[in-house]
């Protein structure tokens, strides 16, 4: 074969090598197919593709069926012959949830809460993660153990205590001790205010790096910063930049993909959150959140006398669920690129 190799010079920087000029394209394909490796590759590829398709189906199908359900009237839902394609196409479910359940207020409240807490959480876990990854100080490992501890003690264990803590809000002092000792807030303000039914508890927890899954965010950030080479900062220090300036001007811009990942997690988990809403928002004055939508059937759609009402209620709930996640889906479509990128670039090391 080698003897027939023809090398021709096409342009100044380009050569064209013709290996064995005799073989035509057809012959070459046939030759390739004869080797068993190619067949294996084709089979593996098909198998892999089908498998991925199957798993994707399991993930996507519930949403498809929910979407189909959301356009059905009560008659369609009862009708066993109707599945996936509604006979009487209707927007009523969406319309009445939107109008009668006050979707816009809920959306505004949730957007405000989720975006601010997610921003605070991202920034705080960025700070803490950077401190843990790049600085050797006494107790560094101990602080990391604390991060793991807040990760593994579930907040449902602390539920009751957390509720009491924010009902008689004071820093440094447990809620059960309220007779003689005074905490920081009481010394300043004179009373222990209740900050439940406001968004304050979420902010307090976020600033302290203690909100939902904050341990995970700090861990992700720490691993990310461990992968950033020390030479970057060293050269900045040599050039006379201080620690904080280095952090703000060199490290932060680098970590944007990871920050987007953390932001996305924190934003979407607080968007769909139910647990903290139940703990902190109990009274009538509590903000109306998106996750409240699934609990209330719009009065117009509530046909109490109908036998099929329980079934229909589930369909309404599904529709409400879709309306809750719709903004998230739109956001995810724009951000999913960064989600993988951020983690990939981090080069996480256990």
């Amino acid at each position, binding site marked *: 074969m080698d003897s027939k190799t023809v090398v021709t010079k096409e342009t100044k920087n380009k050569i064209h090598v013709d290996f064995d000029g005799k073989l035509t394209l057809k012959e070459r394909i046939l030759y390739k197919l004869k080797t068993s490796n190619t067949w294996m590759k084709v089979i593996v590829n098909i198998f892999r593709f089908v498998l991925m398709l199957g798993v994707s189906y399991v993930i996507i199908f519930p949403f498809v069926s929910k979407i189909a359900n959301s356009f059905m009237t009560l008659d369609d839902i009862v009708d066993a012959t109707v599945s996936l394609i509604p006979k009487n196409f209707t927007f009523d479910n969406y319309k009445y949830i939107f109008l009668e359940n006050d979707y816009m207020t809920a959306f505004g409240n949730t957007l405000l809460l989720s975006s601010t807490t997610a921003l605070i959480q991202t920034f705080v876990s960025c*700070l*803490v993660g950077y401190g843990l990854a790049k600085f050797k100080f006494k107790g560094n490992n101990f602080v990391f153990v604390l991060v793991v501890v807040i990760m593994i003690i579930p907040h449902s264990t602390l539920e009751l205590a957390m509720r009491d803590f924010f009902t008689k809000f004071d820093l440094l002092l*447990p809620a059960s001790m309220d007779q003689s000792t005074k905490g920081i807030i009481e010394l300043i303000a004179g009373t222990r205010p209740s900050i439940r039914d406001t968004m304050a508890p979420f902010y*307090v927890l976020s600033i302290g790096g203690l909100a939902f899954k904050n341990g995970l965010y700090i861990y992700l950030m720490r691993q990310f910063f461990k992968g950033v080479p020390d030479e970057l900062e060293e050269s900045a220090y040599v050039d006379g930049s201080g620690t904080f300036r280095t*952090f703000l001007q060199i490290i932060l811009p680098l970590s944007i993909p990871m920050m987007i990942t953390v932001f996305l997690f924190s934003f979407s988990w607080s968007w769909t959150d*139910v647990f903290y809403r139940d703990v902190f928002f109990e009274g009538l004055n509590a903000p109306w959140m998106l996750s409240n939508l699934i609990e209330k059937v719009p009065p117009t759609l509530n046909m109490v006398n109908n036998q099929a009402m329980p079934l229909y209620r589930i369909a309404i709930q599904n529709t409400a669920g879709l309306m809750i996640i719709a903004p998230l889906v739109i956001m995810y479509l724009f951000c999913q690129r960064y989600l993988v990128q951020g983690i*990939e670039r981090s080069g*996480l*090391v256990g």
Partner: protein
Amino acid sequence: MSNKFTDACKSFFDSVKSKFTSKSSEKAVGGEALAIEGGNTFFDKVKAFFKPKRSLDKTKARAGYFFVLPFLLGIVLIYLPILFDSIWYSFTVSTKGASVWDESLGQYVQTQVTTFVGFDNYVQAFSDQDFYAKLLSSLQQILFQVPAIVIFSLFIAVVLNQKMLGRAVFRAIFFVPVIISTGVMEIVNLNDSLQSGAGEGIDDGTGGQGGSEIISMLDVQALFANMKIGTELVTYVVGLVNDIYSIINYSGVQMLIFLAGLQSISPSIYEACQIEGATGWETFWKVTFPMISPMILVNAIYTVIDAFTRTNNPAMNYASNQAYHNPIPGVGVAMSWIYFLLVALIIAVVGAIASSFVFYQRRD
């Protein structure tokens, strides 16, 4: 030109230098040399207190404290009080005391008498048969799901890491559950499946019988029944197949972590494998698996944590329900602490097992 410039600079610096040296020598003559170098005046001392000369390590250590400060403050000011309360509740019983006139409110206020009862709440929690059953089933669920989720997410991450048709689309789809199927959607899905009486077919998350039309539980069982591999394994596999929806849903973060780990393996190692003629199978077990093993440890622990902090966890739900509806809230809190301790034990065991085979690449 450059010579002229440097010469000019030199002469300039020399003149500046000579000025300074002459000044200091003058002062040294005056007997005030220490004041300049050591900082003897009051003002210098104050300055030295606020801006002392430190080594770089010390400065960096202080900066490190500053960076973790929000978290440390959070722990001390918020977390410890809450933690204390939670533990305190589990050891106490509060009963209604006498009504006391409250001046500021202008009405009678019910006082609460809190008594320390030691481990009574814990004993009571253990004697609760319902809790016992829920605890067992929860732990069983965790032990069942953890290996399945870790293996599944590793497998999917390995596949997603390869070049294939539509990889970007599949990646986007696979992380949908992490973002969307949480919190309120879990409740929606649960109600959905309860309503349509799932349990006969495979739970595909639609709640309908969509899954069971394609393949039913009985088929799966029949498939494995003739294999003579023991009933335990059959029930395990059948359980996994039944749980496929939740397994896929709960392996999103793990997949991300595995993908990150896979990306951090140097391509040159794979190149070397290819040159040496290793098959894909060999490459996976001899290169990928050891290199990814720290991630397996992380993911195993994360999965345990995730599984038991989940909101739809039966034991946790029961415990928090008890905390609100039991006349003694302490019992519910005690239950959740018992559960936490058991899971902490599981985490320790999983960590110990996994870390025994973890391989850390030396990075020099």
